[in-house]
């Protein structure tokens, strides 16, 4: 497939300022976005793909999507190649449009080097001691001061989920129990001991209602994957794992109206990925589900459609996620809860164990028989503040 003639540049806007002492960098991004969208005759709600580079303040594309209230973004790209980034983005936007994934891509750039706002600071950085104004992540003054960490912001989601749906700590604990049953067979697993529901709920409280054993491990490590064209795949002497569908989406407060912390972006990525693959959750033989915390798994399973909203607790209980025992074997490497969470980013290990399962190369004690269709789902950032999700559905060919 080529992009030739498949995409159009329909809006363009050059911000008139050359010296902006009175505006933040985030504001210049938003004003530029508004200018280009008005030029095209489109609105912010028409945008389903957002591209920015290192000049955008905050957390990848997430802070600007939240700041601008880009409610319908289902494709993000923060490729950084310096000043050429925006042409790289244009190319990537054309590719996404050509393959039919998105219809309206927004690319923004802005900065204030004449006013001390060169490159944005890292989110959560301390305020300057001398009281100077900062020009970093727009949410900075209203979030990091409150001591939010992954533990307590995911804890907030679990607390609300319990309140709305009656989910219990014992039900959450079953997720860890299942992971530990798998990890016992993984010689590299950071935690190899099988644990019980009682051990999880009696482990010390970290951030209500999440106990120590509701949390993933902290490990060093790494991982990599190689993706090829069909022609290259055919030339290689390895089992063929074919990608059938994929989708991505961010979710964040976007102004604070109708906050809902019991639903994650999987509610958007799941249906899109399943539709593209032409399969349903019931067809999945195996699932790698991002497991930073037990609540992450429970919410993701509900939102992907493995069970009804609010029934995740019942779904994960009684070993239903244990390979050879339950209906949906998950994270058979032990997952982030027991095996590995390299540099606090568990996305790549989710792909890797899915590939092992589809190849039939998982540990024999956890290998799912005839595993020909599987799913990997990643959750990044914080479910409790702003996060980005992606779902990928893969099958074994032949």
């Amino acid at each position, binding site marked *: 497939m080529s992009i030739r003639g498949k995409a159009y540049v329909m809006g363009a806007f050059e911000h008139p300022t050359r010296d902006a002492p009175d505006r933040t960098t985030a504001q210049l991004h938003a004003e530029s976005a508004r200018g280009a969208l008005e030029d095209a005759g489109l609105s912010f709600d028409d945008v389903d793909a957002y591209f920015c580079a290192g000049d955008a303040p905050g957390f990848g594309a997430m802070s600007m999507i939240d700041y601008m209230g880009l409610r319908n973004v289902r494709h993000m790209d923060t490729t950084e190649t310096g000043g050429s980034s925006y042409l790289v983005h244009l190319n990537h936007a054309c590719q996404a449009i050509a393959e039919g994934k998105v219809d309206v891509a927004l690319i923004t750039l802005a900065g204030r080097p004449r006013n001390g706002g060169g490159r944005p600071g890292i989110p959560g950085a301390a305020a300057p001691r001398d009281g100077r104004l*900062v020009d970093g992540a727009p949410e*900075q*003054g*209203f979030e990091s001061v409150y001591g939010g960490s992954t*533990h307590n912001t995911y804890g907030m989601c679990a607390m609300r989920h319990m309140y709305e749906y009656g989910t219990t700590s014992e039900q959450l604990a079953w997720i860890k129990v299942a992971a530990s049953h798998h990890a016992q067979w993984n010689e590299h697993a950071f935690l190899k001991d099988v644990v019980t529901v009682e051990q999880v709920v009696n482990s010390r409280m*970290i951030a209500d209602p999440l106990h120590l054993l509701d949390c993933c491990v902290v490990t060093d490590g790494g991982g990599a994957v190689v993706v090829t064209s069909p022609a290259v795949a055919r030339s290689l002497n390895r089992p063929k794992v074919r990608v059938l569908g994929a989708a991505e989406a961010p979710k964040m407060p976007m102004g604070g109206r109708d906050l809902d912390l019991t639903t994650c972006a999987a509610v958007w990525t799941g249906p899109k990925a399943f539709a593209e693959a032409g399969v349903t959750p019931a067809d999945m033989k195996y699932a790698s589900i991002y497991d930073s915390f037990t609540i992450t798994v429970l919410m993701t399973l509900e939102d992907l459609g493995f069970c009804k909203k609010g029934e995740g607790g019942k779904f994960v209980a009684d070993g239903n996620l244990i390979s050879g025992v339950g209906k949906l074997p998950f994270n058979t490497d032990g997952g982030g809860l027991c095996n590995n969470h390299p540099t606090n980013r568990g996305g790549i290990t989710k792909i890797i164990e899915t590939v092992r399962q589809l190849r039939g190369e998982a540990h024999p004690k956890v290998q799912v028989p005839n595993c020909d269709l599987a799913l990997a789902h990643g959750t990044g950032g914080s479910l409790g503040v702003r996060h980005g999700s992606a779902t990928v559905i893969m099958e074994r060919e032949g």
Partner: protein
Amino acid sequence: MSEIMTRPIPAPAVSLETKPFFDAAAEGRFTIKRCTACGEAHWYPRAICPYCHSDRTVWEESAGTGAIYTYSVMWRSPSGPYAIGYVTLDEGIAVLTNFVDVAPDGLAIGMRVKVKFQPTEGGPPVPVFAPV
């Protein structure tokens, strides 16, 4: 556990867009942004409305009253347990905050709370919430 929670709070990062908020906070006034084009309030405060994208946003004084949407008490903390959570203001918008003047077991979703300002380490005060 009946100890009242407190937590030292670092100075907030103040930007051009948010300086009026922190200036008001220093005077003990809690303000939010509202868009005069679409009428919607939003949080955190922005120059441009995240709902209709107009720049006709204005500061408005708020009573700072609302209900706890959710919370979590963080026990792994060198300065003692502290509670983070969201308050849904009576204006209908959710605010991330800390809860103070309350014991860790004294919080509940739905509990009515009101804003107060807590001094920070070398910066303007920030809004926190306490049970009414």
